[in-house]
């Protein structure tokens, strides 16, 4: 599969905006550095040519922006979707969160995105320039060093465990479509499951105690699109602005994960954005793994309109008391 180039995306975006297919383009905008791209809405070809960028750090999932963007004005919005993004896209459609008619979706292949933290861990801080060459990133720093690092070694966690290279929704596909992949995304979950109750408690206590309740995980999540979140609603019984007790960090993360259980597409944005580096995806994946085990394989967003496991049942479902029985 060919690597898609920034130029080809710019060309496509300009073409669609100029021929009137779309009136706006959601894309990545150049940042101060080569890795700090910002999602942006471009309204004309000039802007696109000047500021649109697609590189190894174009990780942000645009699906969620469609809710807000499709409510604005006339004309269609062009959105570029990596395979994982299409799952979120489909899930939002399933939940009627935006008007499909107002979107022109272009599927783009993806070979995985780099995690800047991993890059810095590998080659150090003070990065001035990152360029891509074949399967390597060339990193220049403040101190005049030029380091090379293999993209495969600095892939974001979600890309290492990529579940699918297949686009589940698009109007147009650039390049070839891939397949759903075998992956090891549940390995870490299993590792935790195999710990003792005490060890698991210690693990999560340590992780969750770092939470600063910035809500970034919620706000970036393409499944968390509630008009009013329960955590912002004083009447919900769980509202809180900051964590005043270790209970609250658990409450927040359990309910957050539970609310997206069966709807989470495992896009990994929550873990990507966490300023405290809490492995939030391990909570969501636990639900996905349990759902697969208890109710049969199900991946939210794979099929538009599919019935989420929590709004479904069979008469023979596992009993909750049995669901937690495991040898310890």
């Amino acid at each position, binding site marked *: 599969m060919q690597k898609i180039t920034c130029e080809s995306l710019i060309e496509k975006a300009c073409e669609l905006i100029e021929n009137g297919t779309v009136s706006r383009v959601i894309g990545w905008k150049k940042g101060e550095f080569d890795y700090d791209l910002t999602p942006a809405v471009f309204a004309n070809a000039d802007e696109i040519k000047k500021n649109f960028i697609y590189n190894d750090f174009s990780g942000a999932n645009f699906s969620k922006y469609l809710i807000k963007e499709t*409510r604005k004005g006339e004309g269609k919005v062009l959105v570029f979707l990596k395979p994982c993004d299409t799952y979120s896209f489909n899930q939002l459609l399933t939940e009627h*969160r935006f008007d499909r008619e107002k979107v022109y979706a272009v599927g783009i292949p993806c070979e995985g995105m780099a995690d800047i933290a991993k890059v810095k861990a590998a080659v150090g801080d003070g990065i001035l320039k990152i360029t891509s060459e074949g399967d390597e990133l060339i990193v220049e720093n403040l101190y005049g060093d030029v380091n090379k690092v293999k993209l495969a070694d600095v892939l974001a966690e979600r890309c290492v465990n990529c579940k699918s290279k297949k686009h589940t929704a698009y109007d147009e596909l650039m390049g070839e479509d891939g397949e759903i992949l075998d992956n090891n995304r549940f390995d870490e979950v299993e590792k935790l499951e195999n710990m003792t109750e005490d060890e698991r408690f210690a693990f999560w206590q340590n992780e969750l105690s770092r939470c600063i309740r910035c809500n970034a995980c919620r706000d970036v999540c393409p499944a968390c699109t*509630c*008009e*009013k979140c*329960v955590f912002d609603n004083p009447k*919900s019984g769980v509202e809180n602005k900051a964590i005043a007790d270790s209970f609250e960090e658990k409450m927040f993360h359990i309910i957050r994960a539970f609310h997206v259980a069966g709807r989470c597409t495992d896009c990994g944005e929550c873990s990507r954005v966490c300023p405290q580096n809490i492995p939030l995806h391990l909570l969501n994946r636990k639900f996905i793994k349990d759902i697969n085990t208890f109710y049969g394989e199900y991946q939210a967003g794979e099929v538009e309109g599919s*019935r989420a496991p*929590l709004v479904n049942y069979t008469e023979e479902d596992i009993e909750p008391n049995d669901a937690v029985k495991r040898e310890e």
Partner: protein
Amino acid sequence: MQRIGVFVCWCGSNIAGTVDVEKVSEALKNEPGVVFSTNYQYMCSQAGQDIIKDAIAEHKLTGIVVCSCSPRMHEATFRKTAAAAGLNSYMVEIANIREQCSWVHKDMQSGTEKAIILGKAAVAKVNLNAPLTPGESPVTKRALVIGGGIAGIQTALDIAEAGFPVDIVEKKPTIGGKMAQLDKTFPTLDCAACILTPKMVDVAQNDKIRIFSYSEVEEIGGFVGNFTVKIKKKARYVKEDVCTGCGICTEKCPQKKVPNEFNMGMDNRRAVYIPFAQAVPKVATIDPNYCTMLKTGKCGVCAKVCTAGAIDYTQKDEIIEEKYGAIVAATGFNPISMDKFDEFAYNQSKDVITSLEFERLTNAAGPTAGKLLRPSDGKHPHTIVFVQCVGSRCDACAEKGKEYCSKICCMYTAKHAMLTRDKYPDTDVYVFYIDVRTPGKAFDEFYRRAVEEYGVHYIKGMVGKVSPEGDKLMVRASDLLANKQLNIAADLVVLAAAIEPDKSARPLATMLTASMDTNDFFTEAHPKLRPVESPTAGVFLSGTCQGPKDIPETVSQASAAAAKVIGLLAKDKLMGNPCVAQSNELMCNGCSSCERVCPYGAITYADKEFRMPDRTVAIRRVAMVNEAVCQGCGACTVACPSGAMDLKGFATSQIIAEVDAICK
């Protein structure tokens, strides 16, 4: 802020015996919102209710908490009391300090503490209660009776008598049920057919009653006053309206080897048949499992001999959809299978029979034309052993049998024994019993007559084993009073098999969303005070589907159920349950989660224009609840991720307030 009154009931000593009611009412005085608190001997009494009414007026109460028995008992009572005093009836909450406190706890101190906690929880809830007004829904003035035995017949007749149309759905080709198979009825010994068949004819002739025989209920939707039922009319391959019931087809049909279920398989019928002479409707039915024409396409004798031209081999099952205001379950019973009772040799010897088979053997319309003959060799039996409690009163954990007493066996066995001795004085009749239970008008006198006048040998003890030896049945049993083991060479053994609910009851209960007990008998709304109603509104219980009972009891319950149905159908409108779901459109995402879990299809969506918090205007898809259809289960409230869906009367904030009050 609410102005709450707390009323603590002593329930005589039922509550006051374990709970210091004075302390409870004192403690609850300090709860937020409480402006008045008192206790009284019987809150549900007129005097008690007057205390509440007076307090509402005097203290300008906006909400009341009654600490008393279960809300399932008197919530309605106190709601009426509140309403009578001008307070919205949904401003009443009950703290269940009897069933869930005083009756299950023994220690005064901890019982009192718990009662206070339960009271606090109720106060916390009332603080968040809002007046609710029930919606109204129209009543379809037609009733459905499921089952056409004596229970169903009586219920249908009584409802029709009151002027309401009734449909009977019976899965067999004729109505009549078990009673049609009986010979005589205790304790009067009048013939079952003589008293039943006129009622069957009444049903057939009543223009308010429709009979769907050979039919089954397929699907039930809706709710009290507004049920929609799909009835499957199975193809009987005979045009019901054309068939004259002359019976020629049933005589000419060449397929003669069909076990006759009406005679408990003790003789055969044809593939086309009328179950018995007095069947209603008197229409032939072709049994597709045996009809050569239907199976191979070759035969057609019945069509040839039918002068009315009623035979139609192409008939298909038909689905009829009808609306009903009320549904009566009258699905009846069956004797349990004797397969697991090897010790009685039921499967080894034809001469070991069940009591229902015995009924057919002594019935003039039965396989032996009423002569008591052994099934094996047609000889007259001289020694007959009756075994009682076969499969009744067993241990709950036993693999075979039922835990309950089947209630009718003692009496019908006495009847059988008596009739046998009456007709055949040369027979020795033994009845093995554990207890003889004869509570009922003229019942014990009847049993005593069997012993004293007819010389039936009643032996206290149980039969341990029956073993066929030659043409005899060796019955080994204990005679507990003599402390002896008996060995009787019997010609016939009759087993009083336990009875169980018909197998169709369980799927029906599921369709009706009516609850059942562990034995598959329908549960009544209250064991004493509402014995003919199911907890599911609009569903009533008639006959043995609710529990074992004899004919007089069945008929009285059937009439009682009819009275309840008539009461319901006489109303033009029903007040709905106001505790229904409510969608906050400002918070709704339109995601459809609620719609997917709603069992009633009560949720619909609309695109509406909203002024968003950031002053923009957006068209959003939002959920709306049809209050007449919603039954208030609350499944949607949890499915909803944003909490836009809430349940009136059981609001999130109310439940949380209860949790907080209990846990503090």
